[in-house]
C-alpha cells in the first residue's frame, strides 16, 4: 500500500550544527505510528519539517502521493496534517467554542459568526471525546487535561488525514489517557493516521501499530510493535545491548534504605485553600518521600505550601526542629529548601539567559558581595556542575533555550543543588526527559539523599515512585489519605491506594 507520509534523506542543520541527518519516516494510511528517541534525537525538528515550521536543507517529503509543498503550518492544516504540540497553542481567555472553531468559524451572511451553529458543532466534536462541558465558558477555566483534549478535538475536527501528537498525555490522568486512546483508535478505524510522539513506552504498546526510533538525528529503524519489547526499544534508542540494560535495572533509584536520620520536615494539617485541605507529611534526613495521587489531588499544592509560594490558611510546619512559615520562596531558600517546579518552561528556565545565569539564579544572594556578582566563583561553580551532571552544552554562555529538554532539566536541578538545600522538592523531575537523562537524574537524586538530605518526590509515573521513594504519601482531593512504606511497595499497591475511596470525618 502506498504510504500516506514518506520522508527520505531529510537533512536539517541549525547554524551549522546538524539536527537531522538523512532521517526517514513512512506512515501508512490508517496507522498509529509511534516516534521515539532521546531528547535531542531530532523528533521535534523532524515533525516541524513535516509541518512546514522549518524548511529542510535536503531530502524529499511526500504526502498522500504528492510532493509536499507545505511551507507553513497553515498549509499543513490545509493539506490534512493537524498537529497538537507539547505546549498548547490555545487562547485561555476565550470560550471553548472560539478555540475549537478559531479560523474556521461557521459564517452567516459572509461576515457574522453563526454562534448557535458554532456552539452546536463544538459540542458535537467534544462529545466524540466523551467531554460534556459548557462550551461558552472560557477555556482557561478548565483543567489542563480538558484543555489538551480540546486541542486534540480541534485538530481532529479539521478533517485531518494525519494527526501528529507530541507528548499528548504528559498532563493527563489515567482515565483521560484511556479516553484519548479511545479517540486515537477511533481515528485509526476511520482511516486517519496518527503520528504519536511519546516518552512513555507503555503508551506505545497500548496504542501504536509501528514505531520509528530516532537517535542523534538519524532514523535507527522502524519496528512492528508486536515484534519488539520495551527493552528492545530502549536499546534501540540508546544504541546499547538489551542485555546490558537488563543487568543494570530500569531505574537506578533502588529505594528502600532504612538508615533514617532525624526529622527534617514535619507538616501537620496544612491547608492553603480549596486545592489542599488537610495535609500531613514527615520527611527524615536521608529519605525520599514520594507524593502519590491523581492529577489535581494536591501534590503540587503541597509542594507550594512547603516552599512558601501559597500562604497557609490552616495547620503548621516545622523545619529542622523550628517552626517554619516561609512567606515567599526567598524565605524558604534561606531556610534551606529547594523546589524544582513541574512546568519547566513556564516556571523554570529563563529562556534567553545563558546556562550559567540560569544555573546560579537561586544562588545569587550567596554569590554576591556588595551587590556585585563574584564571576570567578560563579564560573568555577557552573563548570563543576556541568561536569558532574554531564550537562551537554556548547559552553556555559549558550542560551538555555537551545538545550534539549533533558539538559535544561539538569541545569534546573543544578540550580537547586547549588543552593545546597537540606530539603529538595522535586515536582515531576523526569517529565519530558529521555531515558538516558532520566537515569542520570535519578542517580543524582539518590546520591544527594545519601549525603543526609531529604527529598520530596512528586511523580505521575508509578514506576518512578515505587522504585524511587522510601515512603509514599498518597493524596486524594487535597487530603493526605494513606502512607506506604518501602521495601514492599508494588505498583499495584500504589494504584490501589490512590484509587481507594477514603471516608472522611463528617466534620470536614
Amino acid at each position, binding site marked *: 500500500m502506498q504510504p500516506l507520509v514518506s520522508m527520505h534523506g531529510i537533512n536539517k542543520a541549525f547554524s551549522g550544527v546538524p539536527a537531522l541527518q538523512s532521517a526517514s519516516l513512512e506512515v501508512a494510511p490508517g496507522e498509529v505510528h509511534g516516534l521515539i528517541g532521546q531528547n535531542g534525537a531530532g523528533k521535534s525538528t523532524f515533525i516541524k519539517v513535516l509541518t512546514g515550521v522549518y524548511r529542510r536543507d535536503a531530502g524529499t517529503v511526500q504526502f498522500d502521493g504528492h510532493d509536499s509543498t507545505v511551507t507553513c503550518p497553515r498549509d499543513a492544516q490545509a493539506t490534512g496534517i493537524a498537529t497538537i504540540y507539547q505546549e498548547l497553542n490555545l487562547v485561555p481567555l476565550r470560550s471553548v467554542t472560539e478555540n475549537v472553531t478559531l479560523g474556521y468559524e461557521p459564517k452567516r451572511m459572509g461576515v457574522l459568526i453563526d454562534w448557535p451553529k458554532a456552539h452546536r458543532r463544538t459540542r458535537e466534536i467534544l462529545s466524540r471525546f466523551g467531554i460534556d462541558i459548557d462550551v461558552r465558558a472560557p477555556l482557561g477555566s478548565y483543567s489542563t487535561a480538558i484543555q489538551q483534549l480540546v486541542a486534540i478535538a480541534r485538530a481532529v475536527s479539521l478533517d485531518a488525514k494525519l494527526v501528529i501528537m507530541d507528548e499528548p498525555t504528559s498532563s493527563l490522568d489515567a482515565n483521560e489517557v484511556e479516553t484519548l486512546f479511545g479517540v486515537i483508535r477511533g481515528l485509526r478505524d476511520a482511516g486517519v493516521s496518527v503520528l504519536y510522539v511519546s516518552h512513555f513506552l507503555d503508551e506505545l504498546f497500548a496504542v501504536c501499530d509501528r514505531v520509528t526510533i530516532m537517535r542523534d538525528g538519524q532514523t535507527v529503524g522502524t519496528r512492528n510493535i508486536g515484534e519488539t519489547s520495551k527493552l528492545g526499544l530502549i536499546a534501540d534508542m540508546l544504541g546499547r545491548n538489551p542485555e546490558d540494560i537488563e543487568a543494570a535495572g530500569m531505574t537506578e533509584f533502588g529505594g528502600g534504605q532504612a538508615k533514617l536520620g532525624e526529622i527534617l520536615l514535619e507538616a501537620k494539617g496544612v491547608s492553603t485553600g480549596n486545592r489542599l485541605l488537610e495535609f500531613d507529611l514527615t520527611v527524615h534526613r536521608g529519605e525520599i518521600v514520594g507524593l502519590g495521587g491523581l492529577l489535581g489531588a494536591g501534590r503540587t499544592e503541597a509542594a507550594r505550601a512547603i516552599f512558601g509560594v501559597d500562604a497557609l490558611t490552616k495547620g503548621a510546619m516545622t523545619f529542622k526542629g523550628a517552626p517554619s512559615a516561609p512567606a515567599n520562596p526567598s524565605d524558604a531558600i534561606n531556610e534551606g529548601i529547594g523546589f524544582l517546579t513541574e512546568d519547566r518552561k513556564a516556571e523554570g*528556565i529563563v529562556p534567553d539567559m545563558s546556562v550559567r545565569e540560569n544555573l546560579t539564579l537561586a544562588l545569587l544572594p550567596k554569590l554576591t558581595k556588595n551587590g556585585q556578582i563574584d564571576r570567578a566563583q560563579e564560573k568555577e561553580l557552573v563548570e563543576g556542575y556541568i561536569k558532574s551532571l554531564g550537562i551537554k552544552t556548547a559552553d556555559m554562555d549558550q542560551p538555555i533555550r537551545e538545550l534539549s529538554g533533558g539538559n535544561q532539566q539538569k541545569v534546573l536541578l543544578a540550580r537547586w543543588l547549588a543552593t545546597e538545600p537540606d530539603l529538595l522538592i522535586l515536582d515531576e523531575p523526569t517529565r519530558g526527559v529521555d531515558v538516558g537523562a532520566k537515569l542520570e537524574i535519578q542517580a543524582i537524586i539518590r546520591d544527594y539523599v545519601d549525603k543526609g538530605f531529604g527529598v520530596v518526590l512528586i511523580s505521575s509515573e508509578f514506576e518512578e515512585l515505587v522504585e524511587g521513594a522510601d515512603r509514599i504519601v498518597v493524596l486524594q482531593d487535597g487530603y493526605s489519605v494513606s502512607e506506604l512504606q518501602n521495601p514492599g511497595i508494588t505498583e499495584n499497591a500504589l494504584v490501589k491506594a490512590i484509587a481507594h475511596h477514603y471516608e472522611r470525618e463528617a466534620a470536614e
Partner: protein
Amino acid sequence: MNAQTLRQNGGVVALIAILLFNAAFTPNFLQLQTLFVNISQVATIAIVAMGMTLVIATGGIDLSVGAIMALSGAMAPLIFQSEFGTAYPALGLTAAFVFPLIVACMCGLFNGALISVLRVQPIIATLILFISGRGIAQVLTNGNLQTFKNPAFSYLGTGKVLGLPFQGWLALAIAVVLFWVVKRTSFGRYLLAVGGNEKAAQLSGGPVKTVKIGAYVICAFLSGIAGLIVVAINSASDAARNGNLMELDAIAAAVVGGALLQGGRAPIFGAILGAIIIQLVKYTLLANGVEDEVALIAKAFIIVLAVYVQQARKE
C-alpha cells in the same frame, strides 16, 4: 557580510549609512559645531532611553518620563531663585539639583509601587504621572516660562570638558555605570530574569517587586537629570515643553538599540546608539530643509524597521 551579522549589527550599519549620507550631502556636516549640537541634543534622549531600557527589560514601559523631566526642570529654577537660594547660592544650587531628583525618584517609586504591588498594567500606571506630572509642573510655575541667569547651573547644559559638551560625558558615565549594573550586579541579573520569566525569577527567590520598583526609580531619576539638562541648556524652564514627547523618543531609541518589549534584554549602549540614530535622522532631515512633521514620519519608519529586524531573528 551575511544576513545574520547584518541583523545583529543593524544599528551600527544604519549609523554608518546616515553618517556617510550626511558627509556627502549635508552642508557643513563635518564641522565641530555640528558635533557639539548633536551631542548636546542626543545626551538627554540617551539618558532617558537608558532608563527606559531598564524598565523595558522588566517587560514594562514608562510613559511618564517626559512629565518627570518637566517637573524636575520646573523645580530647579524655583529653588535657586528663591529667597533661600539667592541668600545662600552654593546651598541653593545644591538643593536645586538634589530636590528635583528626589522628587523624580519618588515619582518612580509611585510608578513602581503601582505596578509591582498593586499590579496595575505599566502603561496605565505610568499614564497617571504622564498626565498629572506635567500639570503639577505647570501649577508650580503658574504656567509661566521661567528664565534665569545662573552660570553655575547652566554648566550642566553648556559646559565643556575636554572640548566636548559636559552632558555628553555625563551620558557616557551613566552608561558605564548602568552597563556594570546590568552585567555584574545581582540587581542586573534579576532585572533580566524578571523580564525573561517572572515566575521563574520569583520561584528562584528573586526579589521581583524590589527589582521592578528599582527599574522605575532609576528611570525616573535619569528623567529628572535629563529635565535639569534641558533647563540648563535653555537657561529657561518651560513646563509645557520640557520633555514633551520624550517618552516616544526614549522608547524608540531603546527599541532601535535592541531592547525587546516583552522584556529580558537590556542593551545599555544599544540605547545610546538608538538615541544617536534618532537624533541624527532628525538632524539630517532638518539640515536638508525637510519639515518637522516629515521628520516625525521618518522616525516612525525607523521604529518599524527596528522592530522588523528584531522579529526576523527567527529560523
